[in-house]
């Protein structure tokens, strides 16, 4: 399923978008989708960590090494 949304861009951002699209040979939609996907992944990762890091800390797990020890 595909969705279309309209987003207002200021001149500077629109210019940057046009530049990147031209430079990489992609469409503006493609550049926007890609940028959005990356940004949302980061936002979701931060959100997930906000909930999960405290749970791990309660179990005394703080670092990657603690996780590796716990899981092996």
């Amino acid at each position: 399923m595909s969705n279309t949304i309209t987003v207002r861009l200021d001149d500077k951002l629109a210019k940057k978008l046009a530049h990147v699209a031209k430079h990489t040979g992609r469409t503006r939609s493609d550049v926007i989708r890609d940028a959005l996907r990356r940004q949302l992944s980061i936002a979701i990762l931060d959100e997930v960590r906000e909930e999960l890091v405290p749970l791990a800390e309660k179990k005394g797990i703080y670092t990657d090494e603690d996780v590796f020890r716990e899981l092996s």
Partner: protein
Amino acid sequence: MKVFLDTNVLISAVISRGLCRDLLRTAQEEHDVVVSQLVVDEFERVLRDKFGATQPALGKALMLLDDIEVTMNPTVVLDAGAPETNDTLILTAAIDARADVLVTGDHGMLAQANVLPIDVVSPRGFMERLRVPDDSYPSLREENGGPRVSEDRTGPAREFSFDFSLSIIKLYMELQAAREYVLSKQLLRSGTSIGANLEEAAAASSRRDFLHKMTIASKEARETVYWLRLLNESHLVTDLDVQQQLDQANKLVRLLTANSKLQTLNS
């Protein structure tokens, strides 16, 4: 580079402080990340059972894996000489997925890295490797720096589809001349879009994008066969011979099916 992430790396990325968080981001942005179904299941199970993650939190955590390629668990498990069954399963899955590297925090696996049949590195080892200048891995990046499918995997169908489009256009003109305006338009659309989608697949920005375009090409090829058969057997236009185009369309379907089987084997 195709990077297989072990469960412990994914778990660390979402619950602890260290390299794994950045590693997940970097790997997703610059490389093709792959995991197996076993990793996804384990990721979910550990977060829920060991750390008490709530259902909404789990849902969000799984959303992080949306853009990652997930392979089926291998049916044949290699005897990789690894001591634990789970390690063996992960190793086999990584090899099966044709990963260039397996990133794990498992000390047992890392200790044996030199005898394992695949490159196994720690998260730290992986991040250090990324600091090597890009030109040491010329095949990894296109000039624009984006991660992408490294070579053209569309196979022989791409070249063939161009000639096929030409013959469909010719047929379309004959049909128009014979005043067949309905089926001819359908045929023109589906017949010429096979090649267009293969071109898009060849320039795909990710593996997922590539597979998606290949699937569309395959569907269009089947649709084309359908319209041609209909034209052939309905006798809408008398004295019309579309057998040649029908043979070519069937050949395209075969080529694309073979290619999709190849991609499945390679994933």
